[in-house]
């Protein structure tokens, strides 16, 4: 089993806040290639019952958490994103302020057909300006030889 600093598991980062800008939602939708007007045109979004531009589901990834303490893992040279999971409780609109906290939930080593890999699970909590949890996330980072 790969060595790491277990004392870091479960330690929550201090929150970082982000103002959700219309331009950021537009640019994000444009980068995905999603032309739905609710991401570009405030009147189109309001016609659908939203108070302003609404954030696309994976926009959560733009809210980067404070860097977590070092797990002190010496392994491999390739870092890959293994997966992303989100659970949604409230919409995120332009004009909201979203704060994000993160913590390492688990570290596991597995051997597959391409050799050994280390999986690092990070859990994220996203809150709006009213303190409501709008979403939670779970990211799997992979360290590969």
């Amino acid at each position, binding site marked *: 089993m790969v060595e790491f600093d277990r004392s870091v598991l479960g330690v929550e980062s201090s929150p970082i806040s982000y103002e959700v800008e219309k331009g*950021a939602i537009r*640019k*994000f939708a*444009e*980068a*995905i*290639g*999603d*032309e*739905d*007007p*609710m991401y570009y045109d405030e009147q189109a979004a309001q016609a*659908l*019952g939203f108070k302003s531009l*609404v954030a*696309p*589901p*994976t926009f959560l*990834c*733009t809210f*980067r958490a404070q860097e977590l303490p070092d797990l002190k893992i010496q392994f491999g*040279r*390739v*870092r*890959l*994103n*293994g*997966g*992303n*999971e*989100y*659970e*949604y409780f409230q*919409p995120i609109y332009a004009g909201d302020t979203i704060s994000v906290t993160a913590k390492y939930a688990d570290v596991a080593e597995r051997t597959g057909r391409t050799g050994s890999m280390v999986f690092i699970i990070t859990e994220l909590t996203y809150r709006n300006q009213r303190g409501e949890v709008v979403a939670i996330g*779970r990211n*799997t980072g992979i360290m*590969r030889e």
Partner: protein
Amino acid sequence: MAKQPVYYDDVNVGDPVPTLEKRPTRRQLVKYAGASGDYYEIHYDHHFAVNAGLKDGVIVHGLLTAGWLAQMLTDWLPSPTALKKFGVSYRAMARPGDTIACQGKIMHKYVKDGEHLVDCEIYAENQRGEKCAVGTATAALPTRS
């Protein structure tokens, strides 16, 4: 965008989610790097990617593939806020020049806590028949009654 509303009453287990096709370019990866804030060079710098162990060069951001799968769902759903859970794992590399087909299918249909829910399997497949991302999504649908 005029959407055909999807009602819980009208969908069945086994029904497909309308397919969305994407043809990523390196330019799109640069745009996504900027819009998402993920500037890891394996997504736009060929030599960096090769040196990092990716012998065929740059790869698509996992979260961009996730963004396409989310777009497939929000194109189909009455509102992006209908999406309750969304999760994907990345299994194979997607590269600039690939044709990525985002697909999905309803696996379960049920009522829970007053919400009419469908669980879908979702995946993004390249032209080589490799599944670049696989996952599941849960959405709440309106009813006719």
